[in-house]
């Protein structure tokens, strides 16, 4: 039975239900950063003082590489002030480094991945880089994320460790936490590798309140031509980013993740004819409608991602209750952007960050496990404080 078509809503109502508004009085460094991301050509008009603030904020948000790429494509480089050229060049250099290190790491572990005989899915930055997506340009990944089926994970871990890969976190509690309750192993390091390797068997914690259909993720994965790897299908890539942004993270200074989502949406909308219907359909299947809602609403409000009218209508229809939206909007507003490079974080923003962190933990684990985890963290932090005090 088809659902009745919704009656058209007044524009004002649509706006309020379809957006997560940024705080009206936005700090200057945030405004500049968003403006540069949305329309890099506008940077040609900036004064030196504004440039300085923009560049320092971009670096703090780990978006300097992205800003550099967009500005250099829009504004003649030679016309820029010399100190601006310096920082854009630095951003470009840093992004190039991260890209090369990603490719180097993958080349090094490729024989191990092939040996599993299973489909290997690259996630997040690694996928964007190997696929050559526009979202990759200027990215600064901190690690390389790879997903394999659960059944081959132990063997893969074993063969990597024999090759010299080691866990950074060797604490038995952390090890147990990761293996039992998380969707990934603790990060792996290797001499000669600048980045860490995160091996996943799912994209969300298995005991959390939100879970994606891992089998569907693997089944719909798309082969990346010229490589032995797969990537999540376009809709799943967006959903992964959305889930990661607002659920599986603490949301502080994560503007760069929203920038990724915006870039993915723009690219897939332009290259895949049925991207939007597939997106909402997959979200329903994976039960990730709520994270998708927040991601689309935030991307539209902050980065002006163009959304087709049926999606805007969908946002209005599926909006969470008003108090939830208001609370979430306020929290996100305070914690998505980078800290003010000229100040210290306001107490309110710190609390907001902590609240979101708590929420992410709440979503990651059922209550009894959460209590244990929190108690354990607190106990161990007490231990380290005591040790530090003794050594003082």
């Amino acid at each position, binding site marked *: 039975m088809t659902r009745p078509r919704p009656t058209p809503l007044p524009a004002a109502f649509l706006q309020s239900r379809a957006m997560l508004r940024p705080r009206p009085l936005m700090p200057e460094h945030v405004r500049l950063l968003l403006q540069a991301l949305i329309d890099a050509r506008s940077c040609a008009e900036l004064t*030196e*003082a504004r*440039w*300085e603030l923009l560049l*320092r904020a971009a*670096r*703090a948000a780990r978006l300097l590489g992205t800003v550099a790429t967009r500005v250099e494509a829009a504004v003649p480089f030679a016309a820029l*002030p010399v*100190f601006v*050229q*310096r*920082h854009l*060049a*630095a951003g470009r*250099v*840093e992004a*190039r*480094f991260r890209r*090369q290190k990603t490719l180097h790491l993958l080349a090094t572990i490729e024989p191990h991945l092939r040996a599993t005989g299973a489909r290997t899915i690259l996630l997040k930055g690694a996928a964007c880089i190997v696929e050559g997506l526009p979202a990759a340009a200027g990215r600064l990944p901190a690690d390389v994320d790879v997903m394999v089926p659960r059944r081959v994970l132990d063997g893969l871990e074993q063969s990597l460790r024999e090759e010299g890969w080691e866990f950074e976190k060797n604490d038995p509690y952390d090890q147990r936490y990761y293996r039992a309750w998380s969707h990934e192993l603790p990060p792996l390091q290797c001499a000669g590798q*600048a980045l860490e390797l995160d091996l996943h068997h799912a994209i969300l914690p298995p005991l959390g309140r939100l879970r994606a259909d891992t089998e569907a993720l693997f089944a719909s994965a798309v082969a990346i031509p010229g490589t032995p790897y797969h990537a999540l299908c376009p809709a799943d890539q967006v959903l992964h980013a959305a889930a990661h942004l607002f659920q599986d993270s603490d949301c502080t200074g994560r503007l760069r993740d929203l920038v990724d989502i915006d870039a993915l949406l723009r690219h897939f909308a332009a290259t895949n004819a049925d991207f939007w219907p597939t997106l909402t359909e997959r979200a329903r299947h994976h039960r990730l409608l709520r994270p998708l809602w927040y991601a689309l609403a935030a991307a539209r409000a902050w980065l002006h991602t163009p959304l087709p009218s049926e999606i805007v209508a969908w946002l209005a229809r599926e909006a969470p209750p008003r108090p939830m939206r208001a609370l979430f909007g306020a929290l996100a507003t305070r914690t998505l952007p980078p*800290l*003010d*490079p*000229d*100040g*210290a*974080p306001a107490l309110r923003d710190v609390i907001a960050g902590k609240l979101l962190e708590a929420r992410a933990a709440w979503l990651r684990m059922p209550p009894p496990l959460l209590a244990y985890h929190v108690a354990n963290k607190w106990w161990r932090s007490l231990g380290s404080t005591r040790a530090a005090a003794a050594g003082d």
Partner: protein
Amino acid sequence: MLIAEVAPAQLRGELAACGVAIDCGAARVRVHSDVPELADLLRVVYRGYERSDAAGACDVAVRLRRARGLRRWVRAQVELLIDGSREMEPFPADTPLPLLEWGMNYALATRLNCHLLLHAGVVERNGRAVVLPAMPGAGKSTLTAALALGGFRLLSDEFGVVRFGDAHLLPLLRPVALKNESIDAIARLSPDAVIGPRFPKTHKGTVAHLAPAVEHVHARHTPAAPALIVFPRFVAAGGVEIQPLPRARAFARLAVNSFNYEIVGPDGFDALGRLVAASDCYELRYGDLTRAVQHIGRLLDAAAARG
């Protein structure tokens, strides 16, 4: 107007409000602080720098402030924010200048990836650079200071800033950090040298800062062409011993002793290659500063004559 000429109260006010911009050559740093003693310290060790327009664009802003909460009063500390974020451990409140200087080093080392940054002292004479890479126990800063006081122009005691492309050395001029016995050695070598107060309890021992000469401050936007690379090694009461070093070895040792060689990739490889190819490379063991300075002068003249 030079920083030394600004009235103390005025400087304190500016530090607390809009900040004071320090132009080091390859970068500009804005310093903010609510710690009153810092103004007096800056007036000594940054005496030759112009009090440049604080509103002019800077590459990084650092804020030195008294710690919050209990640590403001009990075993008082000062902390350093770099572009709003606290990335270093606080220091005891009676060592503000060492914290500022080390913090500025860290801030610059992470932000200037548009150049290759070697961990080296650099001086210049007649347009040609001497690069002194830092090895543990080498006495790099002491030797760099002695050269700066012995007729060479100081570019930096910490950063060898190598420009991509032509591999010229760019000044990143800051006070020279002297430690322990070096402080006396330099004071003896040059009684007119302006050295800031001693800070006895830092994690590197006693630290004091040598103010760069006014002429060197004026020249901080003038690059220098590569000519000589000297790996120094201080051996107390030893004579001067000079050994040529194969260029490939010099390359390897410089790459390993760099702040950002791994990050800059092919541009760094090319720039370092050009720097080494254009330079005579030596190891220098010395026990006496004056003689070391003389020998380096001769090596530089020889390199210039050849090149």
